[in-house]
Each structure stands twice: as C-alpha cells, then as structure tokens.
C-alpha cells in the first residue's frame, strides 16, 4: 500500500466516522468515533510529514493524537460520568433524513473541492473534498443536536475538518501559529466543559433546547 492509498484510506475513514456520528445515538460511541476520527487525522498528518519530509507536521500529528483522540475524549467521558446524564442523543431530525442531508452536503463539499489547484483526481482532491464535507456535516450536527456535549463534538468535528485542510492543502503552517491554535482549541474545550458543568448544575439537564428564555 502506498502512502497515497494510506492518505485516501484515512481521509475516507474520517468521512465514514463523520457519518457514523450522524447516525449514532449513543453518547459514548459518538465520543469514541470522534477519537477515531482524530486518530486518523493524526495519521494523515504523520503520513504527509514522512512523504513530503515536512517534519514540523510530526508535531501537529502528535498534538492532534494526544489532545483530540486521547485527552479531549477522556475529558468529555469523565464529564458525562460525573454529571450522570441520560446517555442517548435526541436529535431534532431522525437518522435517515439527517443522512440524506449529509449526503447532499458531501456532494457540495466535493464539488467545491474541484476548484482547488491540482485538485482533480489524486489524494489532494479527496483530502479537500472530505474536509469540506466534514465541515458542513459538523455544522449540520451543531444545529440539529440538543445536548451540550454533542454540540461540543460537532464543533470539534468542524475543527478536525479545518486541520485536515491545513495539513492537506497548505505548504505547512508556521509552527508557532500551529501551537497557538492547538493551545486555543484545548482551552476552548475546557471552557466549554466548564460551561456544560454549570449548565447541568443549574438546569439539571444538558439539553440546550431548554436554554430558550432569551428571545427577540
């Protein structure tokens, strides 16, 4: 298997995990799928680091795997354990309709990706296509999910998509910036976690559709 195949395998795997997250109703499984997705992202980064000898990407890969496939999932699972919420997701849309919408979004993402230079055919095309599809799917998840934790996961999916573009398309973001961004992401997740905790303490629920006092 060539590195080209490995890239495509991982990118498509990320897309599959995105779809499984859409179709999944168990909170823990969703988090595990997210961890898997991040792991694949890390592998993509590491593969590119090896093949294009861009060694700074190893740092990206390391950070991604350590943070997003281990630390953040662990943090979220601990959060769920501690606040002991109902462990099923209740989306606004049922699964088949959601999948259909996501299918359309993937088509859009792929169509847009054809505009990139050297994009038609090849690994790059698929990397961008998958990334843009995941971005749209993440946004879709964000508007159709009620639970605070699933909204965090949707946000993280969007962030994974952005990182996939960053490693797949750019000739390498400056390392300082990359570190700053990674740091910011983890702080943002911590803050989101704190907010979830406070919301659950206050409302006895993680259902953000109950946050509807403010209107007009």
């Amino acid at each position, binding site marked *: 298997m060539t590195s080209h*195949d490995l890239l495509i*395998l991982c990118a498509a795997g990320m897309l599959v995990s995105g*779809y499984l997250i859409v*179709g999944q109703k168990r909170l823990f499984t969703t988090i595990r799928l997210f961890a898997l997705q991040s792991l694949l992202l890390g592998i993509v980064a590491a593969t590119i680091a090896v093949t294009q000898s861009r060694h700074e990407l190893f740092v990206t890969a390391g950070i991604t795997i350590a943070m997003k496939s281990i630390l953040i999932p662990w943090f979220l699972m601990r959060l769920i354990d501690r606040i002991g919420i109902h462990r099923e997701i209740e989306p606004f849309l*049922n699964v088949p309709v959601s*999948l259909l919408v996501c*299918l359309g979004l993937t*088509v859009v993402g792929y169509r847009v990706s054809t505009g990139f230079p050297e994009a038609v055919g090849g690994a790059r095309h698929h990397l961008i296509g998958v990334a843009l599809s995941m971005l749209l799917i993440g946004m879709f998840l964000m508007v159709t999910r009620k639970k605070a934790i699933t909204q965090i996961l949707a946000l993280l999916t969007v962030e994974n998509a952005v990182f996939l573009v960053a490693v797949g398309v750019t000739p390498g973001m400056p390392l300082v910036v990359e570190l700053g961004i990674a740091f910011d992401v983890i702080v943002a997740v911590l803050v989101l976690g704190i907010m979830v905790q406070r919301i659950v303490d206050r409302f006895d629920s993680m259902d953000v559709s109950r946050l509807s006092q403010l209107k007009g």
Partner: protein
Amino acid sequence: MTPVLSDALRAFGLAALQAVFLLAMAPLLKTLIKMMKARLQNRQGPPLLQGYYDLAKLLRKETVRSETASWVFVAGPRVYFAAAVSATTLVPVLISAAPLEAAGGVLLLVGTLALGRFALATAALDTGSPFGGMGSSRDMTIAALAEPALMLGLFTSGLAAGTLNLGALARSALQHGVTFHPSDVLAFAGLFIIVLAETGRVPVDNPATHLELTMIHEAMLLEYSGPDLALVEWASAVKELLYLTLLVDLFMPVGMATSAEPVALLMALVAWAGKVFVLAIAVTITESMNAKLRLFRVPELVSISLGLAFLALTIRFL
C-alpha cells in the same frame, strides 16, 4: 467429449469442490467467533470443533414437526440450505473466478440468498406459532432495507471495474493493482454493517440468546428440531462465511490465485484464511463493544449503511 461439455463438467466439478470446502469451513468460523468473543470476556469459550459436534448431534436426532405444519414447513430449511450452497458457487474464493460465474454475477447472488430467506420466512409463518410470525416479520423488515444497501454497495465496486461479475471484479483488481478510492472505504463500511445485519450479529440481533422480545433469526427457528434445524444452522454459517468472503473478494483480493496450480492455491488458501480471520476479529470486536440495539433502532443502523453505500456510489462521480 466436446470441449463445451468438458468445460461445463470442469466448472461443475469445481463448484462442487468449492461448495464442499465452504460447507466444511463454515462451522469452524462460527465457533471461532464465539471463542474469540468468549476470550474477550475472560471466559473459556467452546472448543474449536464445537460447531461440528453440534451439527453431528442435531443430525442424529429425530425430527419433530407440528401436526398443523404443511409442506412449506418441510421445504423451508431445504430451500434455505440449497440456496446457500448454490450461492457458494457464485463467489470466487481461492481462484479469481467463481466456478459458475457464467451463470450470473452479483444480481444472481443476491437473488439466490433472497430466495433462501423467503423460504425460511414463509416456513416460519406456516406453523402459526406467534414467534415464528414475529421472527419472519422482523427479518423481512430488516431485509427490505439491507438488500438495497447490499446491492448499492456491490454496484459501487462493480462500477469501478465496469462489471457486475464477481470473478471479473476480482481479476480486474488483481490485474490493475489495488488503487484506493474513498468510495471503497465508504462501500466497505456500508457492507460491513450489512454483513452484521444479515448474519444476525450483535448490534442487530444476538445469536447467543433466545430472549423472545429481541430475537429475530432465532425466532424463526423455534419450531425446528433435529436434522431440519441442523440444515438451517449450517446454511446460516455458510452464509456468514460467504459474506466475509465477498468482502475479501471486493476489497482485498490481493493474494488470490489466478490459476489452479497447487502452490498458488496453497498461498491463496493462506491469504484467504488470514483475511477472513481478520474480518472475523473485526466482527468479534464490534460484537463485544456494542450492545444490541432496540428493534426500532435497527432500521436506523441499516439506513446508515444505505447512506454510506449511496455516498460511495455518488463519490465515484465527483
């Protein structure tokens, strides 16, 4: 003897060999998955040959049939078994050509399996027992969703090679080398879910229980005993092995023999066994990590695979 006739005879010979081979291996696979699952749960698990012992025991027992049962009930297991055995001749296993591939490709395979399912479902209805009816209605519900997904997944693979013939598919993959396309991964994920659904594995059905509220496949078999039951169990095992072989053929054909030379065949046997084993591990892990879904959730799971298969097909064109 005319060449046509000799070709036909050779094909039938091969078909018989392959059918016997798969029939022989199938109980082993079933027990293997059971054993690995037990090991993952820190249990001892059955010995590897347990599947054969079970079949032998069932075949020795006497058959008890309900007085109200008609010929449909008798025919059910036989047709089911026959369908599974005929299906084995349509799938390439060790050599990159199915023995009877002249008869038809993917469509014939799906149709044959559907015939078996139909026979079993009607047979389960025949005795009038409430469980049988419940089982067949559930089985049909899932099948109605799973079959289109299966077809779509198979079509996706067929689209790349430009043929729906499984042997030709494997040959083209072997010839051109395996080039990855995201749709392969998507189709694989979709088909894997379908295999879980069709073989009654955990997120869909639990093969290890006879709990009336949840069972699907087992509910259809409650009225059967003795050799009839053995036939159904055996055919199910063959079907499972067949599905895993199908996944192997479509997505990882590397290592298949292109001719019937003994060395190549031996290599192919090792490769095939290895690949099926890997898939069996994947099935085991999925079974151990997931709990069975509520029945109303099953269509959702199957619809995921339908979505993935459809996406796989779409992405081919993007």
